[in-house]
């Protein structure tokens, strides 16, 4: 029989997993919000950040978290550059469709580059506290998972505050809601969109570092992330950061709990079943606003 302790343990693991999914999906939904692009390469950048954290630890012996001050600005700049140099060049009428092709090719290039630089071998950061754990609500929680979750939660909070409290955030939301009107009131939407894109990619830097703390990484790992993330942003409602966070938590927990009766292989399908169900019942997503409906 399934014990209560195992259910609690799985729930806690689900919350920790959901936190990481939420952060990563937030970036993905932000791209869609600001420019209606589907960013297939998001998870490839995630793996790049994980590799940078691993490499940083390997070379310096310092804690991989200390790589964040380097990777976050780097990824922000890369995001702005990618938006300016590549995505902004797509024709607005076909941008959503073409962005899939474009970012798909970027993902393949990144995967190939990682394979060339670091080979296809699986890598894992070995920390002094890798095997350490704490007792929490009757469940054992690995310290590394807790750190990853705290990192994701802090990044989400920062993203939320930027979006709601800063002038840039207001401009960004105005651009998401109605680009023409935003331009009419004097918002430089081109620049705002670029920074929005940079912000999205910065979440991948943080997520990648969190991922590297407690997971094996290899160049083609990103394909295993992009599917669930895409499903999460559709379930949450395209463009809605809050909806994405809730959907990520719910699906993360569902997957963790379903592993008890179904096993690892079948539990993964929960993301896709949720995706099908959402499209059939509520195509705009469960938390999506006007934006998703219009699309």
């Amino acid at each position, binding site marked *: 029989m399934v014990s209560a302790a195992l259910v609690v343990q*799985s729930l806690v693991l689900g919350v920790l997993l959901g936190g990481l999914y939420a952060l990563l999906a937030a970036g993905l939904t932000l791209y869609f919000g600001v420019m209606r692009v589907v960013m297939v390469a998001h998870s490839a950048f995630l793996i790049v950040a994980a590799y940078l954290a691993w490499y940083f630890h390997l070379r310096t012996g310092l804690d991989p978290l200390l790589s964040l001050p380097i990777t976050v600005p780097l990824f922000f700049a890369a995001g702005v550059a990618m938006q300016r140099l590549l995505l902004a060049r797509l024709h607005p009428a076909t941008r959503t469709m073409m962005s899939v092709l474009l970012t798909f090719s970027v993902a393949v290039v990144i995967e190939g580059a990682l394979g060339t630089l670091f080979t296809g071998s699986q890598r894992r950061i070995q920390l002094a506290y890798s095997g350490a754990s704490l007792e929490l609500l009757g469940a054992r929680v690995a310290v590394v998972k807790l750190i990853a979750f705290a990192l994701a939660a802090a990044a989400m909070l920062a993203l939320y505050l930027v979006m709601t409290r800063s002038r840039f955030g207001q401009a960004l939301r105005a651009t998401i809601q109605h680009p023409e009107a935003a331009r009419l009131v004097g918002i430089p939407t081109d620049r705002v969109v670029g920074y929005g894109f940079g912000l999205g990619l910065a979440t991948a830097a943080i997520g990648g570092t969190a991922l590297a703390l407690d997971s094996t990484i290899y160049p083609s790992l990103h394909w295993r992330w992009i599917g669930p993330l895409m499903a999460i942003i559709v379930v949450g409602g395209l463009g809605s950061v809050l909806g994405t966070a809730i959907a990520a938590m719910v699906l993360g927990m569902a997957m963790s709990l379903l592993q*008890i009766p179904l096993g690892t292989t079948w539990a993964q399908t929960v993301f896709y079943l949720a995706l099908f169900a959402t499209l059939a019942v509520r195509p705009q997503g469960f938390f999506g606003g006007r934006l998703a409906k219009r699309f």
Partner: protein
Amino acid sequence: MNAKYRIERGIAVAIAIAALGSAGCGRGRKSGAGDPILIGVSLPLTGDFSEPGKGIQRGYEAWAKLVNDGGGLLGRKVVLKFLDDQSNADRVVSDYEQLIGKDKVDLVFGPFSTRLVVPAARVAEEYGMLFVEPAGAAKQVFEQGFKNLFYAAPAVASEHYNYLAKYLLALPEATRPTTAAYAAMDDPFAKGTAYGLKARLEAGGVKTLVDEVYPPSTTDFSSIAAKIAASKADIVVGGSQYQDGVNLIVALQQLSYQPKLAAFSTAPTEAEFAKAIGNKAEGILAPTGYTPQLKFPSNVEFVRAYTAQFGGPPGEDEANGYTTGQVVAAAVKAAGCAAQGECQGKLVAWVRANQVDTVVGPLRWDDKGRPQGAHMIQQWVKGKIQVVLPENLKEADLIYPKPAW
């Protein structure tokens, strides 16, 4: 008319085929007494299996060098012809077609991995060639009805843990484990090892509490570990390759699960294993078919020659490649021939009926080509991995129950 045209075209095609055929024959080689013995091999030198593939290749090369330095086989030099199948099952078929049909090799050696051994063995079977293979331990290999196939290693995957099963079931009732948890990668070899032990322990009354199979791409083992930890099973068995085994052990450590015994295939035998799990490897067990320390006479010679040639001791893949060479060489010497045709039947009959002394010990086979030995069991004792079973080969005493990790 159409019909007439068709006949004419048919004749033209027939002539063309005949011409090509005879041209092919013209190019084919005829081997005589003084010529070298040409041995054809297709190996995954690039792609998914390139690392073990290159290991096997080094084993084959070490064997060829040792044979040639000693005057060759039947007084003829041996020459290896390698083709790269890129880890691709279609390529491996055309490679062996080419080696046997066009290059007219005298003998063939097998490729690497179950997925490539089966299609390659089918080609060898069609041409009636003796097919000794260094990899492909999964039970599926021996269920295809092959008559010419022999696996050149001590035991098939499901028999790897036989010594351990015997040891555990012979323990006094007070200390004998009563419950077990299994987690295995969905891979014929990795799963085969864990399920072999599972079948034996279940038959001996050890209850299975967890039986998890995970896809090869799994990187997050926290849920599997949670199930195993919650079951509080006495022992944990992992049908692992490398990284999955490391990840599962770390996840189990994070949950403070302390089994009396932990056995994982492959992973613990790798040099960097202890460091990868935070130097808490003490007491972890693994089956192995080979260690350079084995005292069999031909192994002492092999390790010395290999180290001189490649600058380091051989691993299991290298040893399996070398073993393949030893088995074929023994058959060639006994049958007194190395050529396609009738000779191959004699070679097959000899291997089936005889025992061969190899670097992994004496080997003999059943009618399906399954070797009739068992793997040794190694354990991390005092910071290094040492043979603990069977008794006559052990380097250290088995520790049970294992210390906490």
